[in-house]
């Protein structure tokens, strides 16, 4: 029984934040929510969590509408991180666990385990404001999962983390998945989605443009990506442009990337190259990357905005 977001519409005054948005998340999977700033990711998460109410549409989890579900069904990592700065890590986590009805003894054990897992057990009695941003984010993650929620909803969980902490967080994701939990997260970083997510939804201006299993989304693009390298020099690839249906998308230093329609067999290109007497050093058939799919659906503009946003976030973190 899955999490079903069914035809959600939400307006803030004149602004339509979500416009008839629908997607389904299979239980026990990791689900990626992709979209530019202001696309409606945070709003849809808040509606699933029932801290906002939709104007129309409904959300169900395992057949029960979300407004009837207990709060401890959900774990939430908001995009804007926030903890009590002058409260000690341990006290703070126990406070949130208590709000979710977790017995104090259980909370203490879990907190110890997770601090250990994140390699920061010495911070138990430190005030949150004394911790680095990355470590605060780990505490925030622990606060979201202490009550053992069925569904973990995370808004931009990787933003502002260094590579080591990104890896620790990914491991934590897989740990939760291993416990049979359902994970939903939004992100700007496509590599995390490629690596972790089994299914995705791309949201743009309040509408769900495409959703489903990553494999199906890629197949639905109706083309394959071919990467070809030969020992001829750079201009030697010009002949490829004359092959019907083939489109050169980029020329790199050591290979050429082509789009091939799904109904054509990519191996015909390899055959053609060999027939031309060229020595093929690389031939690769792949699905289009999520980044390509995202750009194609949302447009180059959104990607540029993302990069600008990421750069400013990175500057903020560095400060």
């Amino acid at each position, binding site marked *: 029984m899955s999490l079903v977001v069914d035809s959600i519409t939400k307006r803030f*005054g004149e602004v339509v934040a979500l416009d008839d948005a629908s997607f389904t998340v299979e239980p026990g999977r990791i689900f990626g929510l992709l979209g530019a700033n202001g696309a409606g990711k945070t709003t849809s998460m*808040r509606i699933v*969590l*029932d*801290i*906002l*109410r939709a*104007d129309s549409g409904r959300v169900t989890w395992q057949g029960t509408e979300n*407004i009837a579900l*207990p*709060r401890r069904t*959900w774990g*939430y990592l*908001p995009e*804007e*991180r*926030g*903890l*009590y*700065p*002058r*409260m000690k890590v341990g006290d703070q986590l126990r*406070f*949130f666990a*208590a*709000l*979710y009805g977790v017995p104090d003894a259980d909370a203490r054990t879990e907190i110890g385990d997770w601090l250990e897992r994140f390699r920061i057990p010495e911070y138990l009695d430190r005030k949150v404001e004394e911790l680095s941003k990355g470590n605060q984010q780990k505490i*925030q993650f622990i*606060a979201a999962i202490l009550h053992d929620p069925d569904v973990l909803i995370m808004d931009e969980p990787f933003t502002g983390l260094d590579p080591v902490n990104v890896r620790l967080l990914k491991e934590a994701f897989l740990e939760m998945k291993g416990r049979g939990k359902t994970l939903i997260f939004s992100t700007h970083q496509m590599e995390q989605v490629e690596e972790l997510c089994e299914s995705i939804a791309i949201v743009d201006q309040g509408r769900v443009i495409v959703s489903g299993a990553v494999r199906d989304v890629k197949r639905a693009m109706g083309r394959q990506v071919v990467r070809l390298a030969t020992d001829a020099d750079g201009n030697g690839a010009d002949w490829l442009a004359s092959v019907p249906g083939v489109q050169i998308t980029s020329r790199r230093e050591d290979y050429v990337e082509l789009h091939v329609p799904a109904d054509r067999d990519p191996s015909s290109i390899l055959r053609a190259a060999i027939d031309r007497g060229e020595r093929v050093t690389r031939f690769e058939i792949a699905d289009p990357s999520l980044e390509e799919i995202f750009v194609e659906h949302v447009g180059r503009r959104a990607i540029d905005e993302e990069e600008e946003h990421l750069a400013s976030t990175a500057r903020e973190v560095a400060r």
Partner: protein
Amino acid sequence: MSGLFPNALHVAKREYLFRVRARTFLITTVLLAVAVAAITVLPSALGALGVSDPPEIAVSVDADDLTTDPVVAVQAILIAAADPGSVVDGEAPSVPESERARVVRTDDPEAAAADVRAEELDGLLTITRGASGDLAFEYLSDASPTNQTRILVTQAANALAISDRLERAGISAGESADLFAPPDFTATAADPNDSRGEEDFGGAILLTYVVVILTFMAILTYGNWVAQSVAEEKSGRVMELLITAATPRQLLTGKVLGTGAAGLTQYLAMIAALVIGLAANGPISNALGVSGQLPFTLPELQPAWILAFTAFFLMGFILYSTLYAGAGSMVSRIEDVQQAVGPLMYLAMAGYFVSFIAMNIPDAGWVSVASLIPFFSPYLMPARILLSSVAPWEVVLALLLLAIGVVLAMWLASRVYSAGVLLYGQRVSIRSVLRATRVSR
């Protein structure tokens, strides 16, 4: 909808511990307690330091036909003013000899005037027989027109002049005493349950001041804490986490209870300091060799009234601070809190000032009506109970209306709160929040 507890208690506990453990809380509480204790022992201490030095006056008489001794007359008025009991009971003054006003006759007005200028003496009263045959008085001192001694000397001069005129009109001193004897006058309370004695009234007014001021301070100070704390949670973004874990009603209730408990802790510290100060006042003044008698007696309160005062205080605080929490949830930055709580502050101040007006006319019809209105009853009803006679049903009705007010405030505040906590960056406007409440849960 989940119940209020135990989450409200978790929130209250966190809020209370956070407040009480803060260094500023400790410092303010200690300072307040010290200030209260100081005020209670201050009169004795000042007495010992000679600040309340009894007045010393010289009288120069240049009219030898006076039958009343002006020295005795002036001294009697000064001593009676310092100890009203001695006149009512006709007993000897309880003020010790050393603290009584001293009035001496002088035959050397020049020297006495020099003493006044040198501040050796408080004043020199010169009495002469004027050309018209009336007595003329001249009082030499550096006292302001509102100086208590100067006022009393003026009174003494009036009395002396009148008895002198009567004397000259042929009425003897004994006859004029009969003439000015107060009539037999008894004021009887219409309400037989009204047990307040005349001499209690000063104490009752004082107690009213204390109750009204304490209520006002609690609303303003601790209400502000609540608003501030909500705004901090919002601007620190911990709010989004809280609102996912608990309902707005749980969060609001916990916040108000926790802050209220911290405020009560501070009040209890002050009350303890007051009790200790009052208890220590006697021994301290004995040790210093001064009179430690308080200038008033506190009225005796029935336990039911004390219970009612407590109920008005607590519910009044909850009513206001719940709304303060709602106001705090409307702003994104802590700097904007003052603006958001403005209307509530004016409301609290209106009740405060109205109760001061009402203290002078506690029996007025509009005071009875206003004392039933939830925003005003926490001030006005205790004032009426102390200063006037109130039917029990009025108190019960006021408490009932206040309780309804609390429930409505809780409902309104949690609507505003659940919408307000997710609104960032907008200008504070009731309209935008009310619009948001329609679409939120």
